[in-house]
């Protein structure tokens, strides 16, 4: 009873501790590719500490929703991160929700953020929220279809079982899995507001989506949102790693040694994901807002194609 509980808490603390580092790594890679030195890897931690220490400055007409939203967003993202196997499958509370629940929890966080963006009644909040709604209306169904794809192969929507299946059963190369992987990468870029969908570094108001929504936030509230953004990136990279590259994951009821191996492999996977993300972001330009439906819609169609293939033939 106690040991699984400790492992579960270890996972929650691990994701929380690694998330800002991952963001720092992506920024560092992008800076190096631009021939800049870039901020140190630990800069996101410093930013968070600084933001938390500052007074929160809030608009006069903000309602209670504006104050509650950052903690809601953070809590939903953190719980979603706790449900994704990072170094071990079959954690104590992994049956609380499956992959659909993880996607929906991130949807709850997005819902809260969009409402908070509209709370002050400025044009920037509105522009961010309306674009986010448009993008999410394509990215969320794409996520669900990717889940369907993977679940039909593994016979389960439970992430732990999917990872075990991918690790142990002889899945082999499948067309539908390849489609799902491509779609999931597009969704990852979209959901995390990365180039080509959105630019996390921009402060040119008219081009941004996510940054426009959090424009009115400051101090500890902004810190919570920044931390949630880092966590969300980590969640998505962890999902990709757990489904498609489950190497090193400790199985259910594994011993401390397997756990240690898993805990050692997991940061390496994250680092590879972060570096690839940085390289990808530097090699592509940001898209116009109304070209995004084609980009994200492609993920939706790939997911649908994968599911259709699986319905037609289990072997695809």
């Amino acid at each position: 009873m106690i040991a699984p509980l400790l492992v579960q808490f270890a996972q929650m603390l691990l994701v929380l501790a690694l998330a800002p580092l991952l963001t720092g790594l992506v920024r560092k890679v992008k800076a190096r590719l631009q021939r800049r030195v870039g901020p140190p890897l630990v800069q996101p931690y410093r930013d968070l500490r600084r933001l938390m220490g500052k007074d929160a400055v809030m608009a006069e007409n903000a309602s209670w929703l504006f104050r509650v939203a950052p903690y809601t967003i953070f809590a939903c993202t953190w719980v979603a991160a706790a449900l994704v196997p990072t170094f071990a499958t079959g954690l104590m509370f992994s049956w609380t929700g499956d992959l659909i629940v993880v996607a929906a929890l991130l949807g709850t966080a997005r819902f809260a953020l969009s409402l908070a963006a509209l709370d002050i009644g400025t044009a920037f909040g509105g522009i961010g929220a309306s674009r986010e709604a448009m993008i999410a209306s394509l990215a969320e169904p794409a996520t669900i279809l990717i889940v369907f794809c993977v679940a039909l192969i593994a016979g389960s929507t439970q992430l732990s079982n999917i990872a075990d299946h991918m690790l142990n059963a002889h899945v082999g190369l499948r067309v539908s899995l390849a489609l799902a992987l491509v779609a999931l990468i597009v969704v990852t870029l979209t959901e995390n507001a990365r180039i080509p969908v959105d630019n996390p570094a921009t402060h040119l108001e008219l081009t941004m989506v996510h940054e426009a929504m959090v424009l009115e936030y400051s101090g500890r509230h902004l810190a919570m949102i920044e931390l949630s953004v880092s966590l969300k990136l980590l969640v998505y990279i962890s999902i990709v790693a757990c489904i498609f590259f489950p190497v090193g994951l400790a199985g259910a009821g594994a011993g401390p040694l397997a756990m240690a191996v898993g805990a050692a492999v997991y940061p390496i996977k994250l680092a590879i994901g972060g570096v690839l993300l940085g390289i990808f972001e530097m090699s592509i330009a940001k898209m116009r807002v109304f070209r995004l439906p084609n980009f994200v819609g492609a993920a939706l169609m790939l997911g649908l194609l994968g599911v259709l293939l699986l319905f037609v033939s289990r072997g695809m």
Partner: protein
Amino acid sequence: MIAIVPGCIAILVALGVAGAILARAPVGRWIVYGGCLLVGSTSLVAGLIAIGGPTEHLVLPLGVPWIGMHLRLDSLSGFFLALLGLGAAGASLFAIGYGRHDQEPQRILPFYPLFLAGMHLVLLADDTFTFLFAWEFMSATSWALVVAQHKDEGNAHAAFVYLVMAVFSGLAMLLAFGMLAGAAGAYTFDAMRAAHPTAGVVAAAFAFALIGAGSKAGLVPLHVWLPLAHPAAPSPVSALMSGVMTKIAIYGFVRVVFDLLGGVPWWAATIVAILGGIGAVLGVLHATMERDLKRLLAYSTVENIGIVFVGLGLAMAFQANGFPTGAALALTAALFHALNHTLFKSLLFFGAGAVLHATGTRDIENLGGLIKRMPVTAATVLVGCFAISALPPMNGFASEWLIFQAILLRPELPQWGLKLAIPADGALLALAAALAAACFVRAFGIAFLGRPRTPAAEQAHETDIWSRAAMGIFAGLCLLTGLFPGAIIDLLAPVAQAMTGARMPVQTGDPWLTTVPVASSRSSYNGLLLFLFVAASGGLAAMVVRRVGSAVLRRVPPWDCGFPDPSPMTQYTAASMGQPIERVYGTAIFRARSTVDMPAPGDMRPARLTRTRSDPVWDAVYAPLGRCVTFVSSHLNVLQFLTIRRYLGFVFGALIVLLAALALWQ
């Protein structure tokens, strides 16, 4: 137990009479709505008991003399009776406070209890005559309520369209029962259950039942009346029509297809599943572009009815393939979603009514900032928005999650139609869920958040205590059914057992009350733990941040990137909020266009932005049909001006034709 329900109906009829007599007295409102509240609560309890209880019969010496009135209360009617009682009790509680503002109570009070009585009788009917009488009675009384505020613009047209569709629906149901009655002309449902109809009869009865019940429920393409009629009625009645009456129609469909027919072929399941999926997406897309709050909710009803029909279609598909446990899962999910829709749609219509009364407008473009002036309404409506957007841990998510599980259950069904329809349904449902979230961010964000856009919104006031109580109770129920979905699944087990011959695994015995639809290796969901985790981590984060960092909060003017504009006109509007989605989906589906009329320099007239969009279903089905009716009637018009000799000639001709047909037949 069954004797209670006719008693309830009798009391409702008496309340209708009392409402007609006491309409103008203030006490009339108390008697009618208070009485309906008590009757609704009784029906709720009776229904809950009847779900698990034995099937009961009752024959009353009413109606057609030599037939009598056959009534029956089984688990299926019990579930819908509980749903009706719940919706009726909530709407009546809301109406006790809200009814004070009715301009012409004499147009509402007599019909409100009668409407409830009609819906009660539909659920109990066990013979064709009683069913059709109750069905038409429900339509007629609800029509009277739709036309109650007949002076408002558009309401008369809405009532006319509603009447046409209601007559059409009644006719289709009549034909469905005519098919089921067979050559022997069986009136009672028991005789229909015992009969073994041929494949052709099954197909025809299914088609008529789908048209009849579908048009009452708002299934695409038979939904056009719904967004007109539901908003036209007073808000508690809107809640009843959207939240409850559409479910009575679903009851009719389930009763005919699962009970009287006892299963239909796979192609029928494909049609239902595809129509449901298309309806879900079309409905929510309409809602996303709508600016009338109540019409937005009505379109969202079209969406949710679509979701329920997807579940029913899956259940029919599994049943046609001899897979009862799958059918039980899909049917349970569909009925669970029907219940959830009753809860959150009633709540949202109450909220819309409160907003309408507080500001005098249903147009969200004229609202804004209501969260400060109507805190209780805003908080409860927010709960409803979370629930209807299928976000965990609310109830809407639990039922949609179950439908997703049903979609994933058996990909190896043999028929190609289903192989393509089921994954397409999955995509359509996922799209509908995401668009619903966008729709309700927009609805809540524009109406309740931001700055007030008009003086009316600025001077809004919180609604009365009765309305707040009704909204609070329904918001609580939305959360509770989301946290304990296992309890609802177990509650529905006898219904699934009766309709499909199987049931879902017992849920309440699972550790931590986890929901496990098939097997724990397949999928599980625990709303309660999830909610506790989110609440605990949010609370923990807030505590730690305040301890470690600064706890000071300073209030300043909005930042707005350095250029704050004091005018609320600079806010995003509902139209601008919906524009990206309209542009992505609407240009193809709704032929949405916006044209800018920019005057030349020096010209004094204002620039104009004109936006148009059209309903594809209306353009493709109803407009040609309307033109056809006009064409035929204008050409048959000459028949009205003939001499008596010619009319007699027509009668003679008709007789000859019929006799000839009879001779050829034999």
